[in-house]
């Protein structure tokens, strides 16, 4: 067992490919824990960022700057009475949040955090992601139906119609990105002298294609890649039922939509699923259009010196976060009441700075000593860092949308989906094919 654990460390492939179940299991656990932590952090960040958009402070009481608020929330939700409406369909009511959660988390098996930092590299990776994430709608529909109440039912019907509609445009946009993996382009777009190869549906393969072609698909066949990306970026907001497409849970119309009757743990599972799905679709966008785990300008600014400079980013980011926390600590009121909070925030700053220093040490160690293990760790660190950073940008966009835009009406939502997004995405798909072959 130890042997199989150690033997994998030297390989360059995903655990799935290496057929190493133990490491696959470890990866699954790491991803599960990581995503859960990310959801909790996202919860706090959303409340904070949204609050600052709206000239208020957001959570401030539980822990310094409300840092422990998500934990308090989680404890509250766990301890809350679990209400199941008496007229509901108990079994379906019980299983619906689990389906949503399962669909949201299963997707992560193929998310490539790096060339070998994924549970498995399926050769139908993107198809698998789209398929499994489309199962999430089943959870919502069942929740709405099982609640046996008008508003959840309408919310569920809306949600299913919305998600099925936007999946079409989303799929078209994805296909145009997949086309790009095989078309290297010629003529005005002939950025590289590679000949047209075979395409791939594998998530890792898609990023590697971008690496080979030396261009993010966002900028490929400009502006076709950009348009497809924008279509996807809009459709993914609709897919995750977030503002301004949050009709299934529009509180001013349907109280809370499909999860009106849910409370406590089950409700928190829906929230967990929603945020996990947000991260999942963002990771699709990052993989397909933003170069996945690649750092910016891997070819333009190539060479080991640039590699070293970019590998300092993770450490510096954490040091920067630590510095913000230190600033917060220094600005804490100097009153006795705030002593515990000040100490807590200071400790948090120290933890952040410690992580930052560790990452810096790894980066510097990899550069100077050249030991393979450290170089490998540095590689993994860089890949994961850039991937997560790109996802974080999307997460911020999600919050920004929510703070800025009113909600669409249902018929308008459908109109946008079918009459605007679908034709444009179809056009982009056709143009991508034409440009790839002819131009």
């Amino acid at each position, binding site marked *: 067992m130890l042997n199989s654990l150690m033997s994998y460390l030297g390989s360059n492939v995903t655990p799935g490919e290496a057929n190493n179940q133990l490491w696959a299991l470890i990866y699954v656990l790491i991803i599960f824990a990581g995503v859960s932590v990310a959801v909790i952090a996202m919860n706090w960040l959303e409340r904070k960022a949204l609050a600052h*958009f*709206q*000239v*208020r402070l957001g959570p401030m009481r539980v822990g310094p700057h409300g840092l422990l608020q998500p934990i308090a929330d989680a404890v509250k939700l766990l301890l809350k009475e679990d209400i199941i409406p008496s*007229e*509901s*369909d108990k079994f379906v009511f019980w299983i619906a949040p689990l389906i949503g959660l399962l669909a949201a988390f299963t997707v992560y098996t193929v998310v490539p955090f790096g060339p070998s930092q994924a549970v498995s590299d399926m050769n139908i990776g993107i198809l698998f992601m789209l398929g499994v994430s489309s199962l999430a709608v089943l959870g919502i529909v069942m929740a709405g139906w*099982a609640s*046996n*109440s*008008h508003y959840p*039912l*309408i919310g569920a019907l809306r949600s299913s119609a919305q998600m099925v509609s936007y999946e079409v445009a989303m799929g078209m946009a994805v296909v145009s990105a997949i086309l790009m993996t095989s078309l290297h382009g010629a003529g005005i777009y002939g950025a590289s002298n590679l000949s047209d190869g075979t395409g791939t549906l594998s998530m890792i393969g898609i990023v590697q294609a971008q690496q080979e072609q030396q261009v993010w698909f966002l900028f490929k066949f400009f502006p076709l890649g950009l348009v497809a990306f924008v279509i996807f970026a809009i459709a993914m907001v609709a897919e995750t039922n977030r*503002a*301004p497409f*949050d*009709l299934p849970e*529009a*509180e*001013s*119309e349907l*109280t809370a939509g499909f999860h009106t009757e849910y409370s406590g743990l089950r409700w928190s599972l829906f929230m967990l699923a929603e945020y996990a799905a947000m991260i999942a679709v963002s990771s699709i966008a990052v993989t397909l259009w933003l170069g996945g785990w690649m750092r910016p300008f891997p070819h333009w600014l190539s060479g080991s010196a640039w590699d070293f400079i970019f590998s300092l980013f993770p450490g510096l980011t954490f040091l920067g976060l630590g510095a913000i926390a230190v600033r917060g600590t220094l600005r804490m009121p100097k009153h006795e009441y705030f002593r515990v909070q000040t100490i807590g925030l200071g400790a948090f700053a120290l933890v952040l700075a410690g992580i930052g220093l560790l990452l810096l040490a790894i980066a510097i160690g990899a550069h100077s000593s050249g030991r393979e293990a450290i170089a490998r760790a540095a590689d993994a660190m860089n890949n994961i860092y850039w991937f997560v950073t790109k996802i974080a940008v999307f997460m911020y966009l999600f919050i920004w949308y*929510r*703070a*800025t*835009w*009113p*909600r*669409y*009406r*249902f*018929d*308008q939502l459908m109109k946008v989906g079918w009459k605007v997004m679908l034709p444009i995405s179809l056009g982009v798909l056709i143009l991508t094919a034409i440009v790839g072959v002819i131009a």
Partner: protein
Amino acid sequence: MNEIKDDSAALKNEFTNLDLETPEKPYLDSNELIINMGPQHPATHGVLRVILKLDGEKVLGTECVIGYLHRGVEKIAENRTYTMFNPYVDRMDYVAAVSNGLGYCLAIEKLLNVEAPARANYIRVILTELNRIASHQLWLGTHALDIGAMTPLFYTFRDREEILKIFEKYCGARLTTHAFRIGGCQYETYAGFEKEVKNFVQFVRPKIDEYEELLTTNRIWLERTKNVGVISGADAIALGVTGPVLRASGVKWDLRKAQPYSRYQNFEFEIPTGENGDTYDRYLVRMAEMRQSLRIIEQAVNAIPEGPIMAKVPKVIKPAVGEIYQSIEAPKGELGYFVVSDGSTQPYRVRVRPPSFVNLQALDVMVRGMLVADVVAVIGTLDIVLGEVDR
């Protein structure tokens, strides 16, 4: 076993508004649904209950059920002296309490045939217009929230706070102010009142631009509000609709110009009107009204005369036998008081014409053929306050 319990039959009995078009051949429609919106619903601004008859999401008809906040304000008036009843009116439209108080005081003054002194009138105008801005700000925040934009709410509440601070400094209360008395004002302005009001005007002008920046050209906002809840000028007049809702339909009717009270004739201001009578026009009209109110406040605070603030009013108010009707332009429309005196210290009858109540009648006309989401938008745009609807 786990079917949705169909309460349509029960609701149908309550649904008296049955002049709905019935198809010649009645067919069973799986989509036809009668549902309750409210009284506990986040978008009904309190405890309004709307029974909706839906075809899918299309509204076939509505029926408003009101009275959940009924406190018998008009009946209470018959058992209170004229002075004692004054604070009660603040509890009707609690977001525009100053306007309510002004209307009542003017009515009783008319009954007594006295007039408030000039300085009192100027103070009244300043406070009432401030209150109009506060009311519109609250409307804007909640209306935007109904349509899904949550940020304007916090911006408007931040700025409304400044108005409430001025109220608090002036009379000690923030919401139900009881600012005016029959015959004038009880309180002289506090030191620095003028300066603070001027500062506020300077402060809030860019803020109104800020609200507009968020919404006026926002594509989704336009789609949600344009051609939603359209009501023609003729329909609006026929239904007795007043205030910004009427003006947005293109009818230039403002009691401050039509029947000036409290020396409104001294001030220069315009009556903003709309063209289409849709939700977007109502939004624009109210935004323009806020700016006009600022204009009035500026003029009033610059020209505020010195002098007494209370007219000569007997300690015990005992009007002669008679009846009067006095109406003012409250933020939501025409707020009228019909007071009948039997010569005693207590009114024989007080009847309030609340603008929200009358405007609410237009809901059915405005939402027929629209979608459920539009009902929410239209309730928001009517700017109803249930305290005033139910009294």
